[in-house]
């Protein structure tokens, strides 16, 4: 009998949730005018209109599959995709070797990193990218790498494979061994999947062009402990990257093997790796791609190492001025000779401690003295803003007072007007904001600021803190943000983005209350993921993107990219369950 109270007590734990009433029992319960049909208690269909594309992402358990793009996706009116068949990927295999250069010539494979990329098949998509590693030390006849990529269909662009030999880091390999990167340059290949075996990729060539030279300080003495490499492009308009072997000089002399497919102009970049030395990165730019001898001369009058302390503080809402911990402080000085020659850039970066102080080693000579600038990025989620390229006088260092960020307040309501709690809200610089940046450095700085985020409260309310501008000329660079509302699992709402919110041009503004965001009605779609063998795919993901069709912004911003392709907007995603079934919610 004594058991009875315990069991009664335990029974208090019993919580059987009320089953949610079905949304529909027949098609007539749904918006049939939109195309909705009732399926297992849910009104599916009635998708939004527009131009859509998709990306299918396989689960990690299916190493035979690769993510691939569906450039044009028709959303089914009744919401049922049916079977979505995952194409089989193509496994590219091959072997990486460096050119046979005695005494390092033993015929084994070379370690390398391979970046496989392909432009997107739809406007504004991210394209395909994958990274794989080539194992070193494998005997001849074996493959040293493999990577699964989507099949190349007629009309698709080829893949670019960047093969970067191992051991190209800032520091030389331990024990004085020669790394692959010291023997041979990277290479870029253009391949399709017509042939899956790439054979042996040989890095370097016996008749490759070489650039040799020396590094000198301002007094003509050899500079030692520098990493030296040539940088350039492999294709017109491509990204600037290493296009030569890497030299780690211990006597001021260097020799670089150029990649045969590198295109000019190229630069020779020498970066110090002695952690006890404060010295600038030296760059000799504007060189043609041919063999020769070059001298990089460090500018004179750099001065001596000097440790500076910069206090980073912020004015918080309670009126207190407090040191800011966790802020990333970067100090930069540059020297650029007007008549060509070697330029020099000194960059130092550190994170502030609990006392808000950043201690950095700099050079105090006149060459750099007037050119120091400082950038500060506060820790993620801070109510304080960034500082970009603020002049820094070494002889009179003032505390840096971070500007307050603008608090964007808002409230999220669903289609019926009820507040929505638990939505993730993320503020991202909009395309307009990015394309107002006057140069690549400013754009890069914007990209290094963590996106502020918040979660809506019970009343659907939220606050996110954004920088009102970046830089010192707010008439040119002013903030515009996209607010992304992301519904978590279990909330039957579509994710939604409110685009291009303009920040009022008032630098004294501390708070801005936005109009209520009313989430659009949601369209539900479903389908089933399977491979070509009709085996269900569990844990695969379908991502649906809306392709931008209005390019008006290209005429409205001062610095659009040359192709002015507006990034496609992710509007929905779904992951297949144990049955291979996936469901998506899209905003109408």
């Amino acid at each position: 009998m004594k058991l009875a109270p315990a069991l009664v007590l335990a029974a208090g734990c019993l919580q059987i949730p009320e089953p949610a009433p079905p949304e529909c029992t027949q098609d007539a319960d749904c918006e049939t005018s939109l195309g909705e049909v009732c399926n297992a208690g849910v009104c599916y269909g009635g998708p939004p209109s527009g131009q859509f594309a998709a990306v299918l992402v396989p689960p990690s358990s299916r190493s035979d599959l690769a993510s691939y793009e569906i450039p044009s996706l028709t959303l089914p009116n009744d919401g049922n995709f049916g079977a979505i068949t995952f194409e089989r990927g193509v496994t590219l295999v091959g072997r990486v070797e460096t050119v046979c250069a005695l005494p390092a010539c033993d015929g084994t494979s070379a370690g390398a990193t391979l970046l496989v990329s392909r432009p997107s098949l739809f406007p504004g998509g991210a394209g395909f990218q994958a990274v794989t590693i080539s194992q070193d030390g494998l005997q001849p006849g074996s493959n040293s790498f493999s990577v699964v990529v989507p099949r190349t269909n007629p009309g698709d662009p080829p893949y670019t494979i960047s093969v970067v030999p191992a051991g190209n880091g800032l520091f030389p390999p331990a024990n004085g061994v020669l790394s692959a990167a010291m023997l041979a340059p990277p290479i870029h290949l253009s391949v399709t999947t017509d042939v899956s075996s790439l054979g042996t990729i040989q890095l370097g060539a016996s008749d490759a062009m070489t650039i040799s030279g020396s590094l000198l300080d301002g007094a003509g003495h050899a500079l030692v402990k520098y990493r030296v490499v040539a940088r350039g492009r492999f294709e017109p308009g491509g990204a600037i990257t290493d296009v030569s072997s890497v030299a780690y000089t211990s006597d001021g002399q260097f020799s670089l093997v150029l990649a045969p497919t590198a295109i000019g102009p190229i630069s020779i970049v020498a970066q110090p790796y002695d952690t006890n030395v404060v010295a600038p990165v030296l760059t000799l730019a504007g060189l043609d791609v041919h063999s020769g001898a070059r001298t990089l001369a460090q500018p004179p009058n750099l001065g001596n190492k000097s440790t500076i302390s910069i206090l980073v503080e912020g004015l918080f809402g309670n009126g207190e001025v407090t040191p800011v911990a966790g802020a990333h402080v970067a100090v930069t000085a540059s020297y650029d000779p007007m008549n060509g020659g070697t330029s020099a850039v000194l960059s130092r970066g550190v994170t502030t401690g609990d006392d808000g102080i950043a201690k950095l080693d700099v050079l105090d000579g006149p060459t750099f003295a007037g050119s120091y600038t400082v950038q500060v990025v506060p820790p993620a989620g801070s109510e304080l803003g960034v500082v970009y390229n603020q002049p820094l006088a070494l002889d009179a260092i003032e505390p840096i007072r971070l500007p307050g960020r603008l608090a964007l307040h808002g409230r999220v309501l669903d289609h019926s007007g009820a507040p929505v709690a638990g939505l993730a809200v993320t503020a991202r610089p909009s395309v307009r904001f990015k394309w107002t940046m006057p140069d690549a450095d400013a754009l890069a700085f914007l990209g290094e600021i963590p996106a502020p985020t918040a979660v809506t409260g019970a009343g659907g309310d939220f606050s996110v803190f954004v920088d009102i501008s970046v830089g010192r000329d707010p008439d040119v660079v002013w903030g515009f943000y996209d607010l992304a509302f992301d519904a978590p699992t279990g909330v039957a709402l579509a994710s939604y983005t409110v685009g291009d919110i303009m920040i009022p041009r008032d630098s004294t503004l501390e708070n801005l209350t936005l109009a209520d965001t009313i989430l659009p009605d949601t369209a539900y779609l479903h389908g089933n993921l399977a491979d070509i063998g009709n085996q269900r795919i569990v844990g695969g993901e379908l991502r649906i993107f809306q392709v931008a069709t209005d390019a008006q912004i290209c005429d409205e911003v001062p610095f659009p990219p040359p192709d002015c392709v507006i990034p496609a907007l992710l509007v929905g995603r779904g992951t297949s369950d144990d049955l291979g079934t996936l469901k998506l919610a899209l905003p109408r």
Partner: protein
Amino acid sequence: MRHRMRCDLGRAAPRVAMTPVSEPGLVGSRTSRANPATGLAGSSVARALHDRRGLRALAFLLGCCLVGCIVPPSLSVDVQDAGIDSPPSITAVRSSSQELPEGAIAQFAFGQMDTINLTLLDTDITDTLYVRIFVNYKPEDPTPARSFCQSAAGMSAFRTATCDTTALCQQAEVGNLTPLLMRIVVFDRQVLDSGSPAFMAMPVGGQSTSRVYSLFCTPPSP
């Protein structure tokens, strides 16, 4: 306009086959290995293992199980404490192009808008979960998270969180294809502004779990 009552799509899943291989219940079907329904007390090999007090305790525990007080085991292997609080765990991580099992190679393009989606489990459904993504974090030279996001409490033990990864890579890290160490940490308490370890300190009782990846920072897609 009719205001519709939307239900959880997960619960309202249509259990109909969409391909010949996806019969509902196929995955879950397995050979029963349950204990026999009839007692074995009368068997010659059966013997008492507990006295009456032990039997009562056993009955209480069984009673709890029967009425549904099931406490799922912790899946976390990270920070544990002696309290009854359950640590969070990471059940899945996805970038825009791949699912990322622990230790995988992840690549993100510098300056390109992207996200990481996490599926998390915390049986303390009242806990808000805070996600921080660190790159090359070293205890002797700690740097703050480059991405953060959170998952609200009160939904279910399973949650999702979406972290913006635009700032995960910095300009200086692009191009050399030298792998960085990316660590995703999930905290069940708000991370403190100060304390040790820096940028990961929590109030007493807070717990965390993490996953580590090799990160490659690539140039933006052409």
